[in-house]
């Protein structure tokens, strides 16, 4: 739209002709503000053309800022940093890392208040069988349907279909030997349970690793 002319002054997306260079923190704030799914740091770094490490640091500042425990804005050398210690405002929103990225959420204390304001879609709850199968897949992924069935000791076909339909699991690979489809969990599942990676799943007894030994661990 805008005539950017022949100048070569636009070096990064944070340099906008005719105005002061954008602050990294504010730029990320603006992007996250319109994003409607979690944004990974790599994506964000690409959007602002800054190193991932800087983006990570900026996000940490933003999180602290919204939590009222710190302030945000890129560290500056040109002006004295007088108010770095200022007690900030604990905002009605927060930045959370879920499903492999960062996303704005209403802060939990305000959930009840805002609930009336949003159209909350009542998604039907998963059955116990679906939850248990989901747990097996989450911990054992990638896993084939026969392997899930062996652990659950029942036919899991319809449950697997339900989980696929909900987008909570997906086909990730094919077993090289048997050709069976291998399933794994999706980022949507991570988002739905409010964690950022399967590494954040609670630890379950190491005896599951080989199905042997360690009976006393329970």
């Amino acid at each position, binding site marked *: 739209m805008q005539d950017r002319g022949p100048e070569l002054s636009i070096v990064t997306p944070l340099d906008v002709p005719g105005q002061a260079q954008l602050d990294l923190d504010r730029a990320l704030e603006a992007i996250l503000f*319109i994003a409607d799914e979690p944004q990974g740091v790599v994506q964000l770094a690409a959007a602002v053309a800054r190193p991932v490490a800087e983006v990570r640091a900026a996000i940490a500042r933003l999180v602290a800022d919204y939590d009222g425990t710190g302030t945000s804005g890129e560290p500056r050398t040109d002006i004295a940093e007088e108010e770095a210690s200022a007690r900030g405002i604990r905002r009605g929103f927060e930045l959370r890392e879920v499903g492999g990225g960062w996303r704005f959420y209403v802060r939990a204390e305000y959930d009840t208040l805002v*609930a009336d304001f949003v159209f909350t879609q009542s998604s039907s709850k998963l059955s116990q069988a679906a939850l248990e199968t989901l747990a097996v897949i989450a911990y054992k992924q990638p896993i084939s349907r026969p392997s899930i*069935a062996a652990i*659950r000791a029942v036919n899991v076909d319809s449950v697997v279909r339900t989980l696929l339909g909900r987008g909570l699991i997906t086909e990730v690979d094919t077993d090289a030997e048997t050709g069976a489809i291998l399933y794994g969990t999706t980022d949507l599942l991570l988002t739905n349970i409010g964690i950022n990676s399967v590494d954040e799943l609670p630890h*379950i007894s190491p005896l599951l690793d080989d*199905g042997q030994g360690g009976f006393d661990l329970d």
Partner: protein
Amino acid sequence: MARSPETVPVPDERAPGETPALDGAAVDGSDEAPGFRVALSNFEGPFDLLLSLIAKHELDITEVSLSAVTDEFISYLRGLDSAEELDRASEFLVVAATLLDLKVAGLLPQGELVDAEDVALLEARDLLFARLLQYRAFKEASRWFAAHLESESLRHPRSVRLEERFRRREPELRWTLSAEDFAALATLALTPRAVPTVGLDHLHAPLVSIREQAAHVVAVLRRGEPVTFRELIAGIGQRGVVVARFLAVLELYRHSAIGFEQLEPLGELTLRWAAESWSDENLESLGADYDE
């Protein structure tokens, strides 16, 4: 290994036999809701606790009267009405099958480790324990999933419509579908999902039909002579068949077609025909619980 529950020193746990009031949740982090409880001669409490004790070898599986557990379970089933409770009940079937496996493995003579078959039997038993533990572990993990799905469903991510001025900056839509394509898409989207069947049968172990096994048991017992379970499974090499036959016996008992007699724990289990009227049609519905 097969310690009697009465003499087991229980280090960090309460004695299994005398603690009817203890809460399963405190021990194994399981149901706070009053689920299926069992009252046996040597154990009384939630079913989950029973499993947990068996899994820890603090209660020998051979000491547990599974027929009593099954009786209690059947009466528990009669009192169920909500879907959630039925879910719970179907869990029991899964675990019960494993328990029966275990019990069969536990009851079969062990003796000295003289041949490969005995070794295999012991290995099978350990594997079964492992399976039970694994089952329980995932069951507990599923509670974590349920809790997190629930709490997260109350959270509100910012998800508002893109501002008009940014919408115009989206790349122009490239539309490639004809009306027919679009109709096909609608048909696809609106068709109830058909069951995608992938031939997986070759990957499963051969299935044993409880119904077939029941037919065999009926045929043997209808001759009128009492038969011991040991006789009933004599010569069967496949563990799956033994288990299925045991399940068939339980099923027939549930239908009051046969009666049990066991004079002492671990003693010979004698079966006799008890049905006053029986037609082979009764077999049709038998074991339907185990079908999937």
